[in-house]
């Protein structure tokens, strides 16, 4: 069985083991959090290599900080906040301010959840705003073993193509299964902005899968 930080009996136990130099405890932490840390770093910095460096710096900061860690937040939140701070510092150095505005003010014009042309016009006499071209039926195909596996490939590719802020929110929420409050906390997002980013990301991915299932039904 693969041990993850979540399945450990207690965080306090994990911290004690880290402080006493237990290698397995550190490996467990790295295995659990390295991938989401890298994803998060990529929301702020421009290249894979820089993201990798930020993640490495974060782990070193975790090691030097663990003796002082007081457990006021969860270990997970603490680690991700270290990463966010470092990634932001790095981004400022790289003069990448665009992602900050994207995270802090996602209300800028964006594509609607569904192409407005698929709805009847607001002036329609009987059914304003109702589907003119309703969503194609996915039936069981979405979760069918074979098509489902292919769909997952399509989904991964499209997730990688989402605007950064949407990508990081959808990844943390839907791939890693974090609750909304944790995502807001770590990214410094308001609940409303987190929801807007999640909504835009999911809506776009649904649209892509709809086209995919229409072509491969």
């Amino acid at each position, binding site marked *: 069985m693969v041990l993850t930080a979540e399945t450990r009996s207690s965080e306090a136990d994990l911290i004690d083991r880290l402080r006493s*130099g237990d*290698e397995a405890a*550190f*490996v467990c932490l*790295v*295995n659990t959090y*390295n*991938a*989401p840390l*890298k*994803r998060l770093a990529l929301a702020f910095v421009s290249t894979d290599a820089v993201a*990798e460096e930020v993640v*490495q710096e974060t*782990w*070193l900061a975790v*090691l*030097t900080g663990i*003796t002082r860690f007081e457990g006021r937040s969860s270990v997970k939140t603490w680690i991700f906040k270290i990463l966010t701070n470092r990634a932001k510092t790095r981004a400022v150095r790289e003069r990448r301010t665009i992602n900050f505005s994207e995270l802090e003010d996602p209300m800028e014009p964006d594509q*609607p*959840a*569904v192409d*407005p042309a698929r*709805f009847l016009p607001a002036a329609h006499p009987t*059914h*304003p*705003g*109702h*589907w003119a071209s*309703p*969503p194609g*039926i*996915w039936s069981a195909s*979405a*979760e069918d073993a074979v098509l*489902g596996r292919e*769909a*997952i490939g399509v*989904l*991964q590719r499209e*997730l990688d193509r989402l605007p950064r802020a949407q990508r990081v929110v*959808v990844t943390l929420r*839907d*791939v*890693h*299964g974090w609750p*909304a409050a944790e995502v807001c906390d770590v990214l410094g997002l308001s*609940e409303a902005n987190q*929801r807007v980013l*999640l*909504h835009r990301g*999911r*809506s776009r*991915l*649904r649209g892509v*899968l*709809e086209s995919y299932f229409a072509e491969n039904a």
Partner: protein
Amino acid sequence: MNDDTPREMACQELVDVITGYLEGTLPDADRARFDAHLATCPACQEYLKQMRALVRLTGKLSPRSLEPATVDSLLGAFRRWRDSQTRL
């Protein structure tokens, strides 16, 4: 229709507020309008089903696994840190 009657939710509005619905953050009045519309609209039922299927499918994406080199280099850092601690 008098002014107290809530406006019926159109499909186009439903797809805009669906994430709030799934998150449980939609105000009660809008939630009721959402549910009322859903009860009579097979296309929106399908849309909601697709959003839920999408979330399940996304949950099946595997977080990228670690390069062995990354683990080695981090373990190296860990050992250096541990050694520096024991020297204190």
